[in-house]
């Protein structure tokens, strides 16, 4: 606990320290200053550690911070929606962990965190905190025994290592090489300054490179080639040994090689899930899955149920972890296909036409290049529009409803019926002419609304009526004309 702060701050201290040494010309005095810096950091860390306390008082957790200003944060245990334990590398070395407590409040500052508790303490706290809030385990007079809780867990799935090879298909972390390159250049500049190498040298290096375009091109090609490789490596590092398990009333997802992360989601608050696949993933038959949870901040990273796994596995796992959806998706009317095609082609076709006109009028070659590119994109719009139409669908199996849309990123949401808090039908002027509308199921979780795009007017009313007949039937036209 004591060590982690100075150790973590050392890298950021390193440059100023080195700077101090350089400026001082490695004189004894500069060593003293550097040593003072290190000691100061350690002392600061010790004081910070000594003034931060946490305590379980009855049915609430209190954290107190009294370094400069005093602050006490009280978290009622019933408000805790999830506990997130992670172990960054430095922490792991020292057997420590970071505990984050999700209270469902919005805003990053509202979240309570305990940085640097021992692993065993983190596990104990986690069981205690979650145990108190899990409704299945409510014994008002006898607080639950943590030791017992630790045993009641069952693994739902452990993702095999070879499925990590699907990583590059997800398109995640593809920009890593560029981030690395940018970081390296930035660091070079910074170090250059610190070490007394002027910016002129860097500029000269840049100019030298600029005069050798083939070298620049080679670097660019290398970076592009590195995209899937490095992206895949990053993906593997983050999703290493992904385990999804159930521990009394909670879904727990663990993942990560360097920073092992464990996220607990209260089953009661899971309203459904979203199954996502991109173009490449669809070709390989793999999907990713996220949980749709009420009051979960940062749900994109926290709500992940599955990394890339084969589609049947994803169905089996989400079915077991949340609930199955087994009904076919109904297609949307053919006029929806025309609309998808129009929207995928028309903007590019218009751009092609405009740039062609501009090219003729002004005689600039750039106009022709732009026109050709736009025309190619318009051509690509044909399969894209058709595929977008093929993706559209909605369905209901008696317990859960499902809507699907998208092509480059296709997402199918499956939502419990009881999670629906309202319906909204929206019809733009163009949709009115085409006789279609967009049906939005209001859900108090996830993104808040899940859309069935371009359903026919009859479907748009029939579907909500089928899911929640008691809400819609009072407002239907008489049976004679419906």
């Amino acid at each position, binding site marked *: 606990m004591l060590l982690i702060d100075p150790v973590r701050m050392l890298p950021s201290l390193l440059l100023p320290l080195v700077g101090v040494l350089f400026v001082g010309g490695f004189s004894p005095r500069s060593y003293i200053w550097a040593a003072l810096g290190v000691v100061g950091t350690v002392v600061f860390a010790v004081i910070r550690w000594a003034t931060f306390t946490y305590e379980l008082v009855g049915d609430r957790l209190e954290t107190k911070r009294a370094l400069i200003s005093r602050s006490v944060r009280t978290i009622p245990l019933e408000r805790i929606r999830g506990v997130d334990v992670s172990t960054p590398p430095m922490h792991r070395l020292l057997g420590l962990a970071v505990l984050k407590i999700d209270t469902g409040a919005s805003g990053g500052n509202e979240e309570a965190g305990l940085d640097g508790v021992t692993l065993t303490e983190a596990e104990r706290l986690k069981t205690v905190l979650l145990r108190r809030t899990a409704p299945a385990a409510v014994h008002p007079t006898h607080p639950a025994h943590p030791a017992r809780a630790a045993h009641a867990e069952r693994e739902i799935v452990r993702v095999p290592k070879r499925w990590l090879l699907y990583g590059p298909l997800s398109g995640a972390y593809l920009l890593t090489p560029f981030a690395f390159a940018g970081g390296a250049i930035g660091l070079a500049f910074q170090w250059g300054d610190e070490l007394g190498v002027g910016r002129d040298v860097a500029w000269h290096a840049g100019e030298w490179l600029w005069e050798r375009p083939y070298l620049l091109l080679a670097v660019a090609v290398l970076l592009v080639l590195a995209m899937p490789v490095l992206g895949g490596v990053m993906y593997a590092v983050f999703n290493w040994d992904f385990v999804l398990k159930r521990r009394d009333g909670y879904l727990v997802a663990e993942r990560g090689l360097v920073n092992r992360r464990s996220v607990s989601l209260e089953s009661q608050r899971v309203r459904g899930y979203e199954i996502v696949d991109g173009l490449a993933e669809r070709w390989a038959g793999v999907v990713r899955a996220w949980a749709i949870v009420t009051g979960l901040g940062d749900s994109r990273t926290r709500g992940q149920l599955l990394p890339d796994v084969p589609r049947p596995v994803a169905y089996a796992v989400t079915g077991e972890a949340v609930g199955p959806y087994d009904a076919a998706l109904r297609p949307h009317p053919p006029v929806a296909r025309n609309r998808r095609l129009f929207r995928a082609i028309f903007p590019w076709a218009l751009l092609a036409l405009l740039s062609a006109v501009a090219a003729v009028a002004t005689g600039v070659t750039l106009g022709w290049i732009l026109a050709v590119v736009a025309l190619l994109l318009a051509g690509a719009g044909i399969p894209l529009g058709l595929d977008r139409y093929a993706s559209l669908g909605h369905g209901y199996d008696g317990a859960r409803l499902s809507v699907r849309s998208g092509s480059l990123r296709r997402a199918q949401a499956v939502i419990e019926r009881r999670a629906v808090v309202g319906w909204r039908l929206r019809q733009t002027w163009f949709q009115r002419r085409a006789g279609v509308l967009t049906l939005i199921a209001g859900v*108090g979780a996830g993104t*808040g609304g899940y859309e069935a795009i371009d359903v026919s007017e009859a479907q748009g009313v029939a579907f909500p009526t089928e899911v929640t007949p008691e809400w819609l039937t009072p*407002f239907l036209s008489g049976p004679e004309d419906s």
Partner: protein
Amino acid sequence: MTSQGPLRDPANRVSPKAVRLWLLQSLMAFVLMLGGSLLVARLVSGWGWLPDWLSEHSWLLPVAVVVLGLPFLAAEPFVRYAVHRWELSGDVVYARSGFLTREWVFVPVSRIQTVDKGQGWFERMLGLATLEIRTASHAGSSTIQGLEHGVAAGLAEQLARRAEVLRDDAT
């Protein structure tokens, strides 16, 4: 989809005074657009680097605003008055709204979290109010504009009381 579709119209119209409210808003928008376009036309005619035909015909912009914008802005209040309707029955709020884009919203009272009654500056002048019925989801929330103040207050009261009875914490 109008009354011929599978859905019937909600039972109640909003207050007739809402037309005046929307007319006032249209007028404001028109004045702003006209002023803006006049300003832009004035500026454009002064710029030397633009092609001549553009700076010489800059007066076309405000004319276009009047010719194209005015009919829309003038029609909007009356179309809205025909479209905007609401109803509370079977413990579900059913509301229709919109001008170019229409919206039908169904909000069951059991899922309502808050009911807000608000009055803007114009609304206050006309004795109107806007009712905001909120659930845990923005897509499942409804806003009813242009209600008579008394009606809005009564409806808010009724909804709040009923929501307490029916409260269903599934969200």
